[in-house]
Every structure is written in structure tokens, then in C-alpha cells.
């Protein structure tokens, strides 16, 4: 009757019949094969973390005192089916279990006067269906410079069971509409969190 090492590699005991040796050899080799393949798979996964980057250029209007969810036009990179702008052009989906670093760079057209503008990374899995997990704030001062940039970042946990949608919401308080212009939005898994690989 063979025994097993702590990782599950089977080996024959001294009392085992010699007639079972060849079958036990095969079991041992197969167990070692499985463990090394599992190790290599985990190492490969660690060097290619789920990552996604979206971008857009075309003007998107932000009316005064209105929450506007940013729309994306291109999937620059996506190695885990985290985005599909043909289905939904506003979100990145965090599918695999883990902790993700999420960020955006948003350019906004300027407007005359001293007003505020914010960009918020919204996490669908938060309490009440939406949590402002990070807010970047800047101000439009006058007609120079040409654009105002906001660069919010946040860390978001996904449990691997319920997919987390992350989006970017822009709001401004000037007297007229301004445009969201050059922009990108990205997420990358940085840790497994509790459990998983």
C-alpha cells in the first residue's frame, strides 16, 4: 500500500509487493508531473497579472453639476477579458479574485473662471452598489492652460465570485459644459489577497 509525501507524491512502502512496483513508479512520476506543472502555471500567472487599459480621445460633454460616467473608445490591452467596449464602453471588470490597482488620467477642457472638477473611481461591489473609493480633484482657473488633468488611483478588492465593475465618474461646477478629452483608464491585479493564486 503506497504512502504519500505531504505534497501528495505517492511512493511504495517496503512491505509492498514487488509486482506493484511499476504501477507505483507511474503514480509517483504522475504526481511529480502534476506538482511541477502546477508550479509553472502559478509562476506564469504571477508574471502576467490580469491587466487592462482603455483609452479615448473624442470629446465627451460634462454638463454642470452632473455626474458623467466616462466612455472609452479603445481597448489598448486586456489579457483577462476585463473589458468589452462593444458591450459596455464605460467599465473595466475585475473578475479574478485579488486586489487590483485601478487608475485613470483624464484631460478636461478649460473654462473661464474658478471652478472645481472631480474624477471618481466607482466600485460596483461597494456598499449600496457604489463607493467613491478615490477622488482626484483639480480646478480650472482660467483659459490657460489648455487642459486640466486629473489622475485618480485606488485599490479595489474582487472576491472572484461576484465580478466588480469599476468606472470613472466626472463632475464639475462651472456655469457651462466642459469636455472630457484625452483619457485612459487601467486596472492591474497586484496581489492575490486571501487565498487563491
Amino acid at each position, binding site marked *: 500500500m503506497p504512502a504519500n509525501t505531504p505534497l501528495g507524491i505517492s511512493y511504495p512502502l517496503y512491505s509492498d509487493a514487488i509486482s506493484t512496483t511499476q504501477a507505483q513508479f507511474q503514480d509517483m512520476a*504522475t504526481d511529480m508531473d502534476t506538482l511541477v506543472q502546477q508550479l509553472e502555471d502559478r509562476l506564469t500567472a504571477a508574471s502576467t497579472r490580469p491587466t487592462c487599459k482603455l483609452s479615448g480621445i473624442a470629446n465627451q460633454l460634462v454638463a454642470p453639476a452632473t455626474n458623467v460616467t466616462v466612455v472609452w473608445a479603445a481597448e489598448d490591452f486586456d489579457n483577462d477579458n476585463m473589458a468589452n467596449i462593444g458591450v459596455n464602453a464605460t467599465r473595466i471588470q475585475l473578475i479574478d479574485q485579488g486586489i487590483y490597482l485601478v487608475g485613470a488620467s483624464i484631460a478636461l477642457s478649460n473654462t473661464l473662471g474658478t471652478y472645481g472638477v472631480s474624477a471618481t473611481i466607482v466600485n460596483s461591489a461597494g456598499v449600496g452598489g457604489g463607493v467613491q473609493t478615490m477622488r*482626484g480633484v483639480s480646478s480650472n482657473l482660467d483659459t490657460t492652460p489648455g487642459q486640466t488633468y486629473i489622475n485618480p488611483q485606488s485599490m479595489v478588492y474582487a472576491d472572484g465570485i461576484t465580478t466588480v465593475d469599476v468606472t470613472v465618474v466626472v463632475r464639475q461646477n462651472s456655469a457651462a459644459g466642459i469636455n472630457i478629452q484625452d483619457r485612459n483608464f*487601467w486596472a492591474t491585479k*497586484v496581489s492575490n489577497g486571501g487565498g487563491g493564486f
Partner: protein
Amino acid sequence: MGVTPNRGYPYPDPSSPMRITEDLQALAEAYDADLKSVQDTVQQRVMFRATASARQAYGAGATATVSYDVLEENNGGALAAGSTSMPRDTFIPNIHGMWMFTATVSYPQWLNIGWVSLELYSTFLVASAKATEMPNNADGNRTISVTGMQEMTGTGTGNSIRAILTTNVAGTRSVFPLFSRSLTGFLVARI
């Protein structure tokens, strides 16, 4: 002889002659060589970090490419060979993949300044952050940071990254200093 499905480890099948010691040696040697090849793929996290604490004069124009004096980290072959001598302001990641970059610059409070921006720039804008300055001298230094993600091709000849600081300082002094500053890049996903 049979072989395992994933790694090709040899084992005797029922029709093979009984050669316990030889078969054990063959399995052990195959396992040893294969595990070594897997171990060799484990490297340090690919990343670099450049810093500077000596002042960088800023005042010749409204835009300055931030320079660095010390390459504190260059792990896992992160930077191209021609991109490691210091001081420098531009870095070339040497591995194809998605990279995360963060730049931080500390600078003094300036009078008559409306805004300051810090850009991560390749041959195009990667990310930018802008801050509004408080127009008084009641407190000391200010800090601005920007973080962005970009695919770098890893050719070692192009696809560089640098940080650019811009302000609309009105010029109450001829030269301003940039204080502590850093640029960090790390590979988040190979391509």
C-alpha cells in the same frame, strides 16, 4: 517506457523489464532538470527606481524634463543597457509588457503661480496630473505625483519614459529649484 503527460517524466510500464535502480535514476534526473528549468524562470520583480535630492534648477522655461542622479534599483533587467548611466532624465524599459510608472516631484511654494502639472511622457502623453497652487508663502514645499500605465516594447532603442514638469509661474525669481524627486517603473504583465 511511459512518460507523464505534462512534463515527460519517464516511468516503467508493465511490459518493461524490472530495472528499479535505473528507472529511479531516470525519473530523479528528469525531475531535477525540469525543476531547475522552472526555478530559473523565477526572477526578481522587474522594476527600476531613480531618485535625486540635489536641486534641479528650473526657470529657463515653463517646462522642464525632470532629471535624476541616482539609480537606486534596476532589478530583473528592467532597463536597457544604454539607459543606466546617471544622471539622466529618460529611461528605456527593456522588457516588452505593460508597465506602471509613478513620478513624484517636490518643489517650493512659489508666488504668482496658478498651477503646476507633472506628465509621464513617452513619445506621447501617458498620464498627467495638475494641481492648483495656493498663492501665498504660508507653508513650505509642495509635492505633485502622477501614475500611469503603458505598454513598452522593450526594444532597448525607443519607447522611453520621462517626467515633465510645467507651471505658469510668473517669474518673480529667475530660477526655481526642484527638490526631492523620483521616477519608478515596474512590469505588471509581460506581453
